[in-house]
């Protein structure tokens, strides 16, 4: 079987200490919570840290509570399975619960954390392979190589953002608290991502996501529709998160965020704005979906034909808008 390389495992007493260790052993240490994304990648030598800093045992990362103003604070080490069982989340942030319930399989949701899913590595089928395979096929830009195997024309990594929960968190204006050695900062989830398959996050490698905050969303409806080959296990090869406020039959606010189509969750600001002021008319929805889908350019680095995945974006958005509007 594929074996893990030896590593040191450290168990810090708090988030700041965790961050300080990772900062000190810059490039050598990595954070780990559920490990569902990291451990297979260690075996495939996509990441080769000599130190792993565990954070899932930290008490403060394990809280899940309503805030006084009616929002929700979820510790980063809360598992995806715990999210799917939470009645408050189900009631007010259904799209987020839906997304969490669609991640991978039950055993992995029991281990995988919400912080881990937000920060999940970008994926590419030239990259998510064993060392031996990558050596045979030619190493890629993201690890050990100097050229992108998907689009070799320029030195840019096109690995795909594969978080199911990030698009919904963005659509619902969630913020994340990051702990560094020097203190904490709270940032919109949207600002955590950038258009680069390698450096896909703006978070510093040492910063620990301690919690996710959902502002109160009374009156908001939300949904997430995921595209994948099978009914379980698979990462998204497309996804649409939608949040809507409908009053008196008219949409007064709306968000559309796509997953699995670029190196970051794609916020379709303009397309979403076309819904505002209108009722949920199927023709309008189709037009909006078309608009959201148009700029998306999937590449041949994920499951199924990329031409078909491109075509499915419109369908995903349509389904997600209709689902949210139900």
């Amino acid at each position, binding site marked *: *079987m*594929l*074996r893990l390389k030896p590593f040191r495992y450290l168990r810090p007493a708090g988030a700041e200490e965790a961050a300080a260790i990772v900062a000190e052993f810059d490039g050598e240490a990595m954070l780990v919570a559920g490990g569902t994304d990291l451990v297979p990648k260690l075996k495939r030598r996509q990441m080769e840290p000599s130190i792993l800093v565990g954070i899932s045992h930290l008490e403060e990362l394990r809280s899940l509570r309503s805030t006084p103003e009616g929002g929700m604070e979820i510790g980063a080490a809360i598992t995806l399975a715990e999210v799917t069982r939470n009645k408050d989340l189900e009631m007010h942030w259904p799209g987020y619960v839906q997304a969490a319930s669609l991640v991978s*399989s039950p055993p992995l949701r029991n281990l995988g954390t919400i912080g881990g899913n937000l920060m999940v590595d970008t994926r590419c*089928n030239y990259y*998510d*392979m*064993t060392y*031996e*395979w990558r*050596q*045979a*096929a030619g190493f890629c830009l993201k690890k050990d190589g100097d050229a992108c195997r998907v689009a070799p024309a320029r030195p840019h990594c096109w690995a795909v953002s594969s978080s199911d929960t990030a698009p919904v968190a963005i659509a619902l204006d969630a913020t994340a608290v990051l702990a560094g050695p020097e203190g904490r900062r709270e940032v919109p989830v949207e600002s955590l991502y950038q258009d680069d398959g390698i450096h896909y996050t703006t978070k510093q490698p040492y910063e620990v996501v301690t919690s996710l905050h959902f502002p109160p969303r009374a009156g908001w409806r939300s949904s997430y529709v995921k595209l994948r*080959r*099978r*009914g*379980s*296990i*698979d990462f998204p090869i497309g996804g649409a998160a939608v949040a809507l406020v409908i009053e008196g039959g008219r949409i007064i606010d709306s968000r559309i965020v796509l997953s699995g189509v670029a190196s970051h969750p794609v916020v379709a600001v303009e397309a979403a704005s076309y819904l505002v002021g209108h009722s949920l008319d199927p023709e309008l929805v189709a037009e909006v979906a078309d608009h959201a889908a148009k700029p998306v350019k999937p590449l041949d680095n994920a*499951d*199924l*034909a990329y*031409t*078909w995945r491109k*075509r*499915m974006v419109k*369908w995903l958005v349509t389904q997600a808008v209709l689902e949210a509007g139900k």
Partner: protein
Amino acid sequence: MRVVGKPLAKVDARAKVTGSTLYADDLIFSDTLFCKLLRSPHPYARIKHMDLNAAKAVEGVVAVITGNDLPVKYGILPISQDEHALESEKVRYVGDPVAAVAAFDEETAALAAEKIRVEYEVLDPVTSIEEALSEPTDEPIHDYGGPANIHKMAALSFGDLEAGFAEADHIREDVFFYGGNTHLPMEQHSAIATYVNGKLTLWSSTQTPHYVHRTISKVLDLPMQAIRVVATPHGGGFGGKTDPFSHELAVCKLAMVTGKPVKCTLTREEVFYAHRGRHPVLMWVRTGMKSNGRITAMHFKTALDGGAYGSYGVATMFYTGALQTTTYDIPAYRFEGARVFTNKAPCGPKRGHGTPQPRFALELHLDKMAEDLGLDPVEVRRRNYVSPNTTTVNWLRITSCGLEEITDQVLQASSYVNRQRAVGHGMGFAVASYLCGAGLPIYWNKLPHSECLIKLDRGGVTVYCGATDIGQGSDTVIATLVAEELGLWPSDIRLVTGDTGFAPVDLGSYSSRVTFMAGNAALDAARKLRNLLAEVAAESMGCLPGEIVTGDGKFGTLSFEETTQLAQERFGAISTVGSYRPPDLAGPYKGSGVGPSPAYSYSAAVVDIDVDPETGIIKVNKVWLAHDIGRSINPVSVRGQVEGGVYMGLGEALMEEQAYRKAMPKQPSMLDYKSLTSVDMPEVETILVETDDPEGPYGAKEVGQGPLLPVVPAVVSAVHDALGVWIDQVPVTPDKIMKALDAKAKGQAPRFGPKSFPDIAYPQYVKVDTPHVATQAI
């Protein structure tokens, strides 16, 4: 019958469900060394130089071997001896092994393997059937076969084809492509060898311990009696563990070199390279039909992408033409087949061996012909069904045949005829047939195909048989048959199986042969034992042996133990033997060795699906599968095999594909190679039809492979029923459906699939006389 036909627990069920079964990878001896193979990163290259020094210098490394240490060629078929355990001159696919390291632990072995320096001269790989047919830019992949990279061709013609087509009211040609796929057993291949006192023992997750035994003897130049091969309990085979493999030969050699036990378990990725999976096959079929649906002639051409080595490929090629006639009475039939070498992982036998591909093409082709003629596709099939006790135009002997019964029952259960018609909803129907064991052995001989020995003493009944339980339940079948004869329960029987050192020869778990052949051998031995016991019991009771009733552990009024004691007092040590060799069934022509079987099973499937015209995504609602099993030795076990076959058939129809980017395997992992998860698996309604085969043990036939076959075309037929498009290429992925719908919308042919069949210079066909047996009227 007291135990045959009863839904009893499998004899190994408790250990399997409690996790106490010892698989090959669970075996470990003190001082065991761990072996890692170094594999080629190139699809096609010459080995210029190898430097082992750095690897040998790694602390903990005990031995490093290369092709120079294992120079003897082998291969499962006598006519394709084209493999080396480790290649020393040329590598032919990504993953071809070139060296093996034995070290104190697996990490060290892997580290050392990485330190072996191999200098390659990279050659231009052959990546497709079309490329293999034309002259290669570099030398051909092998130094036999040809022209170009053709491995083997055949052309056979039965009956008067021209006259048949001349008689037809309608003639149609179609082209199909069946994508290759792999077995995906849960258990990776694993082997551990010891060499003690000049005797070699190999424990391996193999389906064919006897053939591995022979190969070790040849490659390591050891006499047969110095080798023992034990097939360990399996976590799935499906044909993927029927060849002798590099890792098996490497651990044997390393055990001899080091004097220590040596073990090798493949990684999941390596299992994809070991492959021997379903051949991709391009097919062309032309059929003549009367306006009433009766077939007058059929011409079938195939081209198989064999990958880098021979494996079972010549047999596979013949199988793509052999069993068309075991479901339909075809008065004139011509088959032309070609297998080519490419620089991809070697293909071999997978559940259905060479017959799912032509079955897919044939069933859909008949659907299309029925549509052309405005006939009901089920009626067209019925009009051509073979009858029991007939001989096909290619000399295959049909005995028991439940085609009509399985058709009636599957249609009735599924309400196929009165199905709900709506865009996006469809049902498909197809039938198929499969062997109950190959009629001829892999290497020519007139020996038994299966042998069995039963020992009886104060310790009870022990059955020794080389048959290998790969999860299909052959141990349970043998125990049940013996228990039935002796009036015991299957759980009373001790079994020693799959062990060439202790049990007499059985050829292995392939071609759905074990129930039929090992079953008959066990029955032969058990009946002899029963007669001995009945004799002494009758004497003691003062009646005739024929009057002795057995069951519930009794022989007449005596207990089984009392009867045993009487028998031993009379005869001393007691054992009986039995064997089975199928009747001579091959027709009078070269190539007739593939296809004959002492019996054929029959399966009919109806598949109910929803397919979304906006996405092409298919949801399978239900599958009905009626199977002519002859007789169920254990109905629960039979249903398990049916469900497993349906599962695998759906996977092949919908998503499974061993895909490559040029010659680089695209997805050698269980996440990326897609097979159905439990939530994708629909309800299966199994209908068992018992036709009581005259030669099967208690009338039994096979179930391990046949039920997969009709599922694939039935899925595609259902897609046509739902959307009016033909997907002539599997797997039927949603993008293919959307492309076919696009073509339909543009007024083009409403299909997706290959456009043409290459011009292959098949040899002049061999004209074979038709057997002197009346066929049905045309």
